[in-house]
């Protein structure tokens, strides 16, 4: 999976603010139809969009099932039903070569991601805020971040094993290393993008400096920061699974590796699906927060 760079996604998000060409509630005509009718229309549109999305997934599953049945080789490509059976079987039972059931591996990976992601986000946002607030901090930190940003976190795995051993800590630090630069850059970009006039506006309405910073500047930057969190969450899953494939004795990456070694392809798919479900769930949580933070995305 190739992820778009932070800048690409970010510029898309930025320009996205003016992406909507239709003039919402045009004065005169819809002003009488009212807000409630307008929102009902929006909701209908969203339901239709979700329906189309579900159809896309159904088509993918149907194609997979058809190809698998035609090939008739469960080691090369197990069918959807075989994969589902394997998932159900190993969800609560340990795979012989592995030692723990699928749910426990999923929990292990999830815990590593959440710890590394939370710590990385906290550090990245704090660093980004400091860089946005102080020119000295920015000029000092910017080159460091720019050097670190293009490095794949996976290159650090041997180093972390040497420095931190083979426990949980090196895996969490690995995720942090991937999350920090993304969060720093997106935080700086989001805070910088708040127009100076928006702050002046708050001040002329009687808000104190502190009130303006907390309730306007940081608040206005929040959707951008949440978007950064969605990007770095995807990166965190890439990091953790790769680390577990290389150096671990638990987690979904390790399960997939073991299943592959024994040519249990259905279990490989089960592991991949578990990652997809966890990734989608966490992303859905962040998307929910984003919708709360930015009403203009509720459509």
């Amino acid at each position, binding site marked *: 999976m190739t992820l778009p760079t932070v800048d690409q996604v970010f510029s898309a998000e930025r320009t996205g603010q003016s992406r909507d060409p239709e003039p919402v509630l045009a*004065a005169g005509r819809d002003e009488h139809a009212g*807000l409630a009718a307008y929102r009902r229309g929006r909701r209908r549109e969203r339901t239709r969009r979700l329906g189309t999305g579900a159809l896309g997934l159904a088509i993918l599953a149907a194609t997979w099932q058809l190809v698998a049945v035609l090939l008739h080789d469960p080691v090369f490509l197990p069918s959807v039903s075989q994969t589902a059976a394997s998932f159900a079987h190993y969800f609560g039972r340990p795979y012989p070569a592995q030692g723990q059931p699928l749910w426990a591996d999923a929990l292990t990976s999830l815990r590593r991601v959440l710890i590394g992601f939370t710590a990385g986000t906290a550090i990245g946002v704090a660093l980004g805020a400091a860089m946005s607030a102080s020119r000295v901090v920015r000029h000092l930190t910017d080159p460091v971040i720019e050097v670190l940003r293009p490095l794949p976190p996976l290159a650090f795995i041997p180093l972390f094993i040497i420095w931190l051993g083979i426990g949980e800590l090196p895996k969490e630090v690995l995720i942090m290393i991937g999350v920090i630069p993304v969060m720093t850059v997106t935080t700086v970009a989001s805070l910088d993008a708040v127009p100076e006039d928006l702050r*002046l506006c708050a*001040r002329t309405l009687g*808000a104190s400096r502190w009130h303006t910073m907390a*309730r306007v500047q940081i608040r206005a930057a929040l959707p951008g920061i949440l978007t950064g969190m969605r990007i770095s969450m995807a990166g965190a899953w890439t990091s953790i699974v790769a680390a577990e494939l290389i150096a671990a004795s638990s987690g979904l990456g390790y399960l997939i590796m073991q299943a592959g070694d024994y040519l249990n392809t259905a279990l490989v798919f089960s592991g991949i699906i578990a990652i997809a479900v966890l990734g989608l769930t966490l992303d859905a949580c962040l998307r929910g927060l984003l919708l709360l933070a930015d009403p203009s995305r509720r459509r």
Partner: protein
Amino acid sequence: MGKTFRRGGRRTVALAGTSLTVRAGDLVSLLGPSGCGKSTLLRIIAGALPADEGSVTVGGRPVTGPSPDRGMLFQTPMLFGWLTARDNILFGPRAQRAARRHERDDPELDAEAAALLDRVGLAGFGEAFPHELSGGMQHRAAFARALAARPSLLLMDEPFGALDAITRERMHEFLLGLWDQHRITIIFVTHDIEEAIVLGDRVAVMGGRPPGIREIIDVPLDRPRAADSSGDTEAFLTVKRRIRGALRS
């Protein structure tokens, strides 16, 4: 009054020898081409920029920083996108209460928000978010928000520049209506000669090198004025010609 920007050793004089007196309740247009220091002057009055020479006094008190006494409207409505129209309007009163500048309580605020929404023609749209409003409605919400902070002076920086001609004309009528009711003082920045004449009791023509106010021209026309109805009358054309002359000199 004067203002010089310094950046990397280079000095740019943004405003020089500028003096303007505005009587309470007046509507003064600041007219000039881009880069003539209109916005700089407005921001100095707002307290967002310090003046290098001279000073600004409003109601006898020197300006040292932004204050809710001097409201501001911008080219874009600058509504807070995460707040509903009602909460945008209540931002000022609530922020002022947080800063203990006044003690209006919640029921009073709710009534005030409802009254303001009604007055700017947004009754029924209090729960709408800014992106759900049309351009004109957003500007009217920004108006209501500025009024809710109870300023005595309203600074307007080309607020209708981005609107289409028809909506802009409606906003002019709307602005003059509110000005009439509230009797606040308004300084209105524009680069549109007709807009400056339609709105202003006086037009301060800006320009030149170094930039500053060139001439202050009275507009002796009866209200209501509109560019299309009074646009052909001799008096309107005379004022327009005088302003043209001042801009060229």
